[in-house]
């Protein structure tokens, strides 16, 4: 019985995802992203039916398990753009280091000003990086991966809108800077926006996003002592 209930929720997640993806393609508003619509519907359903999260996740965790292989897939764009990395290594390194340092320290600063609890602060600190990395880093710095996932998603949506607006008046001249802005500030959602603006911005954005993710995961044990 539990197996069947578990499989039902897994199947429902996949079906809702497929449907909402088609819907989002027709109405491409950030608020209709499958990552907002599907969890919203499922959370309402779980609350109404009084189904605990453990029951939902009994089989759905197989989907989360795919995040590992999906991260390995990042090796392909890194390999493809190795020439770009070699050519622009200095701006890329500067973008990643500045972006991540500002992300972590401004988050901690604002959280303390607003008196947010430590679990929230530590989950927010990793939110600028791509989700699989953020989930790994969140637990490492003493946050919670579920909270981090939600914050990462909100950050992507906020960053997508804000990035376009900032580039309307910020006096930056290079495509490198415009791509790095999206990659450091709004991870994969920003990268998709950057790709739409120009292919080079998209490549730089995805490289900054992936390198920043790797860096934060590697530095997470050290960060947790610092903040």
């Amino acid at each position, binding site marked *: 019985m539990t197996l069947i209930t578990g499989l039902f929720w897994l199947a429902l*997640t*996949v079906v809702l*995802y497929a449907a909402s*993806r088609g819907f989002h393609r027709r109405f491409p508003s950030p608020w209709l992203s499958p*990552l907002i619509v*599907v*969890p919203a519907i499922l959370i309402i359903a*779980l609350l109404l039916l009084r189904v605990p*999260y453990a029951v*939902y996740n009994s089989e*759905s965790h197989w*989907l989360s398990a*795919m*995040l*590992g*292989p*999906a991260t*390995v*897939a990042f*090796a*392909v*764009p*890194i*390999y493809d753009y190795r020439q770009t990395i070699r050519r622009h290594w200095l*701006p890329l390194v500067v973008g990643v280091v*500045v*972006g991540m340092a*500002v992300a972590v320290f*401004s988050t901690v600063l604002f959280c303390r000003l*607003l008196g*947010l*609890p430590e*679990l*929230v602060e530590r989950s*927010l600190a990793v939110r600028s990086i791509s*989700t*699989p*990395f953020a989930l*790994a880093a969140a637990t490492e710095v003493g946050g919670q*991966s*579920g*909270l981090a*996932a*939600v914050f990462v*998603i909100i950050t992507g949506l906020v*960053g997508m809108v804000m990035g376009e607006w*900032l580039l309307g008046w*910020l006096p*930056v*001249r*290079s495509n490198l*800077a415009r791509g*790095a*802005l999206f990659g450091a*500030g*709004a991870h994969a959602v920003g990268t998709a926006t950057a790709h739409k603006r*120009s292919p*080079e911005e998209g490549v730089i954005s995805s490289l*900054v996003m992936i390198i920043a993710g790797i860096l934060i995961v*590697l530095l997470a044990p050290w960060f947790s002592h610092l903040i």
Partner: protein
Amino acid sequence: MPPVHHHLFKFSRLILQVLVLIAIWLLASYVSANWLGGFPPLVSGIAFALVLLALGLLKREWVNDGATWLMREMLLFFIPVAIAVLQYREQLSGKLIAIMVVIVASTACVMVATAFAVDLAWKLDARLRGTAEEKDPS
């Protein structure tokens, strides 16, 4: 409209490529846990795949479709994690506005700082190369 067996061929090739990436991930997780003292498997997985690609032991064409598919559908894999927020309802209630303020303010700081820093680094880079081609690399 291509024949049915063509779709079937493409589909099985996609599954096979995803299985290759899963195998690399499992191997990297095992090596990380047993020999690298818990080094993040996300990083060793990427490094492992890059080494295989660089050595030519893994051909780009063997995994390209699978990798593209996994990256494109990544949103699906986040959904169960996002729903985990259900367990934190009490801790979040009454703090949503403060959290939004932090996200908006911090994201603005990150974006402005990164864009200016990279722009400066790009100019410095062009000067270091000693070339006159200080123009947009596009």
